[in-house]
């Protein structure tokens, strides 16, 4: 019993939970923007994380550039990719199925799933399916009896700062207001003169950028493979379902909670349980909120 | 033959419905005898569609009871209530877009009170209804290709095809031109008389309501504020003050 309490009180684990949670928050933020403005479940979102991770990895292995320095560039590339996807695929999808239909949501999910398979296997073909890791800033710093590596501290700080910055952007700027309006009610936003297409394009760009950024950070922390993206997609969905669509601060809390669940759960049981906990939380979240997020918003109203 | 049985076909007592903090209906009571056509009148938000949802089982009452043909139906599932003999149309039409007009009615004939399990029987009954409402030519058309007037007519046809005794019509005239309103009115009268249906009608198109209904119930902010013949309602001071702000 005392060992369980020790585990729960461990500063070491707390730090690990915070790092994991902050990364989940960053990834979920991006998905929130994409899904919120478009109402399409982008299950390929985690694969953008994976690509960002590979981008930083190659920048480091080939060019010697630190992942932290490479991160903004990777994020910018992500933004461009987001714009490209919006232009190329999303507009086409609206044209085929007709905006606002439920078939659109079901079809878009399969579309993004197909995209995810393409990305994962293209990466496997290009980079081989083997896991790779890089070692960067592994010096250990101590705070009390908690040992923290530099790369983890950096990841936490960058992820946290980005989340807060984007949340502030959404909360205070006119652009942010437009985005929130589109998330809330797309049809109404058109009526008040918001250029919904432009807002959606920006959401995609920002969403992909944050995902790619998260990927760059992840490359410092764990081994990456073409298939490391998917758990991030799942985690991001859990965070959005628990935190609520468009509600970024609640999402932050949900992300930290999920990070804690995973970290402490694994510590108390075993590493094999990591996926069980993650998918267990996923299934539970969906079963508890069967209408996804809309029921919760209606009750709040 | 006495159409009005000693007991009413539908009896609503003290019906109430709350959605969170919002009270949609409160203390509503009225009854409908078999063969009657009763109108429900009221401004938007008065609780009319909520009333239909409660009767048809799409929502549960927060208070009060609903009895149909002598048995309690509040709290039953919508499909159960349909099999007992109540059908409704939806204010915002809900056709089966990928199915043909005939297939839309087939569902009603198979699963409603008529309960025709054999496909050919169900289709025959469905075609009969389509003839009555003047849609027989559209039987093979996908429901999604109909005009709004056509889809409204489909809603009505579907409800009738269930073989229901009581049909709830929710603003079936909304969005129709004057000609279409006249046509719908004519169709409703014919079908009602041919099948001896009991109707409850929500309408904003006043002249249709007045022509169709023997009795009107007026709702306001979820409460029943008046009930009577169309003429009486037209002169009722409470109704006039609600609609025009003055006592005429």
């Amino acid at each position, binding site marked *: 019993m005392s060992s369980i309490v020790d585990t729960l009180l461990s500063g070491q684990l707390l730090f690990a939970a915070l790092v994991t949670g902050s990364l989940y928050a960053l990834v979920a933020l991006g998905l929130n923007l994409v899904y919120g403005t478009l109402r399409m*479940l982008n299950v390929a979102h985690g694969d953008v994380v994976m690509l960002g991770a590979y981008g930083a990895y190659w920048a480091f292995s080939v060019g010697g550039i630190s992942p932290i320095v490479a991160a903004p560039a990777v994020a910018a590339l992500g933004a461009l990719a987001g714009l490209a996807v919006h232009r190329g695929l999303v507009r086409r*999808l609206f044209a*085929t*199925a007709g905006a606002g239909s*439920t*078939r659109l*949501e*079901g*079809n*878009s*999910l*399969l*579309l993004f*799933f*197909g*995209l995810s*398979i*393409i990305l*994962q*296997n293209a990466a496997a*073909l290009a980079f081989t399916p083997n896991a790779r890791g890089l070692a960067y800033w592994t010096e250990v710093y101590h705070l009390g009896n908690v040992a923290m590596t530099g790369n983890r501290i950096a990841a936490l700080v960058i992820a946290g700062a980005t989340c807060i910055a984007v949340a502030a952007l959404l909360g205070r700027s006119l652009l942010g207001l437009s985005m929130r309006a589109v998330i809330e009610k797309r049809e109404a936003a058109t009526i008040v003169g918001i250029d919904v297409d432009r807002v959606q394009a920006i959401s995609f760009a920002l969403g992909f950028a944050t995902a790619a950024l998260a990927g760059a950070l992840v490359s410092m922390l764990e081994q990456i493979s073409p298939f490391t993206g998917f758990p991030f997609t799942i985690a991001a969905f859990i965070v959005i379902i628990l935190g609520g669509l468009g509600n970024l601060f609640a999402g932050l809390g949900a992300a930290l909670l999920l990070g804690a669940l995973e970290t402490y759960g694994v510590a108390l049981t*075993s590493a*094999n349980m990591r*996926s*069980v906990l993650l*998918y267990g939380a996923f*299934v539970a979240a*969906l*079963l508890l909120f*069967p*209408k*996804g997020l809309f029921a919760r918003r209606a009750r709040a109203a | 033959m006495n159409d009005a049985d000693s007991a009413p076909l539908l009896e609503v007592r003290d019906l109430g419905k709350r959605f969170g903090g919002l009270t949609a209906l409160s203390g509503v009571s009225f009854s409908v005898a078999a063969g009657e056509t009763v109108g429900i009148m009221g401004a938007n938000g008065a609780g009319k569609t909520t009333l239909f949802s409660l009767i*048809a089982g*799409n929502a549960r009452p927060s208070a009060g009871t609903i009895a149909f043909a002598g048995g309690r139906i509040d709290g039953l*599932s*919508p*499909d159960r209530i*349909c*099999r007992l003999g109540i*059908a*409704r149309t*939806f204010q915002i039409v*809900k*056709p*089966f*877009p*990928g*199915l043909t007009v005939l*297939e839309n009615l*087939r*569902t*009603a004939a*198979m*699963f*409603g*009170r008529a309960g025709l399990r054999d*496909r050919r029987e169900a289709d025959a009954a469905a075609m009969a209804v389509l003839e009555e409402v003047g849609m027989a030519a559209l039987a*093979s058309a*996908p429901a999604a290709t109909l005009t709004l007037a056509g889809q409204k007519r489909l809603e009505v046809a*579907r409800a009738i095809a269930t073989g229901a005794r009581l049909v709830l019509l929710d603003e079936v005239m909304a969005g129709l031109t004057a000609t279409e309103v006249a046509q719908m009115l004519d169709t409703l009268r014919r079908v009602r008389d041919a099948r001896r249906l009991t109707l409850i009608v929500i309408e904003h198109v006043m002249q249709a309501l007045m022509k169709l209904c023997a009795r009107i119930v007026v709702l306001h902010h979820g409460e029943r504020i008046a009930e009577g013949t169309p003429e009486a309602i037209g002169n009722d001071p409470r109704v006039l003050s609600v609609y025009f702000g003055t006592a005429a």
Partner: protein
Amino acid sequence: MSAVPVPAPATRAWAVAGLLGAAALAALPFFANPYLVATGLTLLMWLALTQSWCLLSKLTGYVSLGHVVFYGLGAYLVVVTWQSWPLPLAIAAAGALAALFAALIGLPVLRVRGPYFVILTFGIAELVKYSILAAEAASGTASRILFGAPDLIVIYFAMFALAAAATLLLVVVGRSRFGHGLRSLRENEEAAETLGVPVVRYKLLAFVLSAAIPGMVGAVMALRSTYFVVGQVFDPMISVTAIAMALLGGGDDTRGPILGTLFLFIVSEVLWIRAPLAYMLILGAVLAGFVLVAPGGILGLLDSRRARGASGA
């Protein structure tokens, strides 16, 4: 997912073609070499899996991305009872287990709508997979080696029976009152319920019916591998492939899955020989491509071609 096509006037032609194909498949083991028989076995497996998926997802509109969970459960049961249960019993039990699982999770799971249902089913399949993996790791079982499996011919005919059963089930349900109720709730669930369709019961029944045959398919396929790996029998790509085949085919009756399975199967066999690594990629591209360009699948393309021809355009 796509609109119901207007019933094909050439139904008899389809039926004859189908029967001829079935006869050819039944005769295959008697004149073909083992490699071809194994290929035929795989084709039959995909037919069974895709047809059973359509029973749920095409008819009700509840698209499941977790179909593999039934397959995996069936396979796992056979492996776990290997050498201690007679095989016919194990295979039947596999179907029953899958159906039971569906019955247990069906009510809460089917309350979830639209795309959430899609990802939920995916999550459940993964959850079952990782739970079994964790349990096996905890109990120290790594992988299993299976000796004494029946001959390829026996397995082939078992799968033939399952594929035939899956096809027959889809045909019978599709034409029944039950099937019409399912289609109605697919088109508009609230309206269907208000018209008397017992939607909750029907959805659950479709779910359970769609689970039994994949369970037995998994059980039979387990006999093929002497070396059993949990991750493989719960591989999400199995679900995705079945969906791709169904989507490719289009429609909501048996013609679609048969067309789609044949088409994708031929494509994949060719690819497998030439460019195996690209196969997954092509599969993803097929899925994405069809959603974008031809959401009605092959049948949809045929129907629009016929409609255009009829109108003289």
